[in-house]
């Protein structure tokens, strides 16, 4: 429910670490119309090529159709084909098995679902997306959907598709109130069923002068406290979106990078355990 807490950062960099350390292929799905996740990982030139080829998440929502920007095709079309939409970011082989980290690039055209109110057409879009994610789950050990911070149509699609919900929060008052609102939203909305398992990741902890009162309140909370991951992510330049270069933070070198990777690895281990990738 709160912007700027690190959803995209965690989607990109923590999930990259999960992919790198555990025996599973992973798929990142950029479901935010602002598609910052895609911008973090792919250059503009490369992205423009994907857009031209129709290789974006929009293909998971609607079939190709000549239609206006703020309308939805009346036909369901053939199911979305994962191989036509995904792009490979990384690959590796371990124990003779090939693993990949792939991306379904984002698309600004998703913004139209915030202004269209034709329920029947939106239900058709949602059904197509849910089927697509179900197909993706058969191919990947982990599918991570990065969605925008609002109670919007896309958020609802993501919440209905997911089995686990990872909510980053900043150690500030607005952020933790936001996660409380998110949990209320998830718990009380009947269409979200079954309810996803939830974990909360504290992100952006300052390296000095840290006031722990917010973290203490969150960790002590009767229903939220046990969901907060033990490890936190501290503020670090490694997670800042730089003006040049699109990359995973764990692949950046330089001073203190090994310490940062170790911390990110601790978070990745908890995430892997949370989603069932560890025994």
């Amino acid at each position, binding site marked *: 429910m709160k912007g700027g807490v690190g959803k995209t950062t965690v989607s990109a960099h923590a999930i990259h670490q999960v992919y790198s350390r555990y025996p599973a292929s992973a798929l990142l799905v950029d479901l935010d119309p602002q598609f910052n996740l895609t911008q973090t990982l792919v250059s503009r030139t490369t992205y423009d090529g994907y857009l031209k080829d129709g290789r974006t998440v929009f293909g998971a929502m609607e079939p190709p159709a000549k239609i206006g920007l703020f309308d939805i095709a009346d036909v369901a079309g053939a199911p979305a084909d994962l191989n036509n939409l995904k792009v490979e970011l990384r690959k590796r082989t371990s124990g003779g098995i090939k693993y990949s980290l792939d991306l379904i690039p984002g698309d600004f055209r998703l913004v139209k679902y915030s202004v269209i109110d034709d329920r029947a057409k939106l239900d058709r879009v949602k059904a197509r997306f849910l089927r697509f994610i179900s197909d993706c789950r058969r191919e990947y050990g982990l599918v991570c959907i990065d969605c925008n911070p609002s109670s919007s149509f896309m958020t609802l699609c993501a919440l209905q598709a997911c089995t686990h919900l990872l909510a980053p929060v900043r150690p500030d*008052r607005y952020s*933790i*109130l936001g996660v*409380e609102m998110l949990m209320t939203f998830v718990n009380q909305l009947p269409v979200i069923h079954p309810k996803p398992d939830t*974990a909360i990741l504290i992100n952006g*902890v*300052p*390296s*000095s*002068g*840290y*006031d*722990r*009162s917010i973290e*203490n*309140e*969150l*960790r*002590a*909370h009767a229903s*939220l*406290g*046990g*969901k*907060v*991951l*033990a*490890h*936190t992510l*501290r503020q670090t330049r490694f997670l800042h979106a730089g003006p040049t270069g699109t990359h995973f933070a764990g692949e950046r070198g330089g*001073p203190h990078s090994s310490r940062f990777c170790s911390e990110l690895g*601790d978070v990745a281990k*908890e995430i892997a*355990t949370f989603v069932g990738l560890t025994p």
Partner: protein
Amino acid sequence: MLQLLALSEMSEHDLYSAIRELTDLPLPAAMDTIVALRKAMDDALHDPSMAMGRKRGGYARLDSGPDTGPVDAIERLLREEAGLPVREAADALLAALVKEDPGFQGYPPLGKEGFATWLTRLMRHVPPSRLLHLATRLRNSRVHHRPADWPLS
């Protein structure tokens, strides 16, 4: 040395002062100062009265940065902030675990090992996030603070 200064977050003014101070200091005096500072830092790290605040409700850490991990966090919460001796801290944590899950009997008791070692053993049976949750509740029950205007419900 220039790389170390570049990595620091000193302002330009402070950088000028630091470089001037270094260039003005004779080499033997500079080495003596560094050795003395290292000894002082080492003494502080190993002095229990510095590392573990004895005041109930307060703590005297050298820094207030993030914990190094869940064991470090639980030690800080129960030993430093709540001011509990090791045995009391372990007993309180075990009691909280048993209260949540009365049927489970397998929690390892505190032996002769240190608190941190025992916590590491306990984490083989209990997720660290759950232990942190319970430790924070124990800490909050002992440390009183002004309630927030917008508390979690």
